[in-house]
């Protein structure tokens, strides 16, 4: 019955759903897995970056991207849609600096990005973004880490730890068992890698996963050699 109302973004189905958004969530659930964990002294983002063929040379393409000096993000879903959101997010971050001469608090950036995603659910001639985002940030004023998820609908949630993309239900179950409030960043990175490993087909190495960390020194992506060191400890 819902499929009859799936043709148009701007038409509700009788059950009160916007079916296009449901389908967008399906696109996300079909995407490569991503994991985010908040520790006492930082946040870690990790994602699977499997290349479709050995001929691919994706070394210059990054899934985990810095947005401002203190915020970074990763996605599950459609890569090209993500690219656009990264560009939007960076510009929004700089606009905040231009107006307030201060780095943007994480929740402010999340809200602005989510507003962009919502716009694409209530406009003519567009479709929703086929990505869910995990946004990690460190707020300098409060000295606390934050982890947020943004959905195609424009909804956003704060998490202590979460998984998105393929196998996210198993991922979240795994994290529920492993997560503790006292987790520190080093342990969180370890746990994130283990969570990815649950759904990983084949051998994990520094070329097919990406890890980003956000702490009081800001957001940065780990180099392949640093990733290799962490993989060696699991």
């Amino acid at each position: 019955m819902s499929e009859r109302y799936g043709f148009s973004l701007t038409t509700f189905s009788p059950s009160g759903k916007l079916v296009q958004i449901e389908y967008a969530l399906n696109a996300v659930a079909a995407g490569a897995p991503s994991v985010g964990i908040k520790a006492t002294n930082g946040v870690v983002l990790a994602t699977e970056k499997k290349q479709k063929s050995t001929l691919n040379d994706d070394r210059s393409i990054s899934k985990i991207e810095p947005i401002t000096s203190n915020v970074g993000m990763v996605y599950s879903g459609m890569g090209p849609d993500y690219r656009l959101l990264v560009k939007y997010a960076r510009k929004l971050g700089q606009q905040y600096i231009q107006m307030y001469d201060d780095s943007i608090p994480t929740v402010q950036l999340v809200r602005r990005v989510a507003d962009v995603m919502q716009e694409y659910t209530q406009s003519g001639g567009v479709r929703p973004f086929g990505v869910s985002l995990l946004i990690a940030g460190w707020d300098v004023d409060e000295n606390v880490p934050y982890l947020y998820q943004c959905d195609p609908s424009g909804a956003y949630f704060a998490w202590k730890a979460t998984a998105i993309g393929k196998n996210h239900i198993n991922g979240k179950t795994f994290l529920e068992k492993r997560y503790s409030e006292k987790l520190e960043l080093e342990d969180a990175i370890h746990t994130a890698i283990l969570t990815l490993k649950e759904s990983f087909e084949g051998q994990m190495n520094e070329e097919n996963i990406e890890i980003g960390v956000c702490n009081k020194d800001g957001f940065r992506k780990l180099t392949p050699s640093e990733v290799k060191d962490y993989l060696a400890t699991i």
Partner: protein
Amino acid sequence: MFDIKTDTRKMPIEHHFNPYEMNGGTIVGVAGEDFAVIASDTRLSEGYSILSRENPHLYHVQPHTVMGSVGFHGDSLTFNKTLQIRLRMYEYENNKKCSTPAVAQLISTMLYSRRFFPYYVNTIVAGINNEGQGCIYSYDPVGSYEREVYRAGGSSSALIQPLLDSQLGLKNQGSFELSRSYTVKMSRENVVALVKDVFTAAAERDIYTGDAVFINIITKDGVFTEHFKLRRD
């Protein structure tokens, strides 16, 4: 005959908001073989008043690039702020720092984008390019720019530029070589000494130049600073 009691009341008085203000200041840039020097005085003025004696007009925009900006201080500050934002976007998107020639071109496009309500500033950019050479670029308020060996900009530019032509360019002093070089063949120490001398000279005659000079020496190892006092009258 003009009667001051009656005729002044008959004449229309125009009031108009002037969006610009002259805040004075002078900047000088010199390009060496493997270094670049950019200096500015530190005086900020308005009319016959001094607003600050400790306000350099140099902005460190990238690791090997310094921009000097004089004219209307409000536009100097805002242009620098906007430039910093653009350079941060460049760094995020390209995953590397912006080279000096790229900064130079970017500044030109940014200035021209305000062709019909200009940034009221005279700009000089100094830095090291990817080949390790010193380079200087100078601009007019709407972004017309050129790479040069040396340039003076700001309120006492007309006093300093001829001095640089004489001492660095050796203009019309018997040299028959057609120089296509964009750098000066002088040592760092001599260039810095010359820059101190030209500012001392300018401070003698230009009321808007004085108090102190901030000198930035840019090499492949980074930016070094020197401070030099000038007459405060």
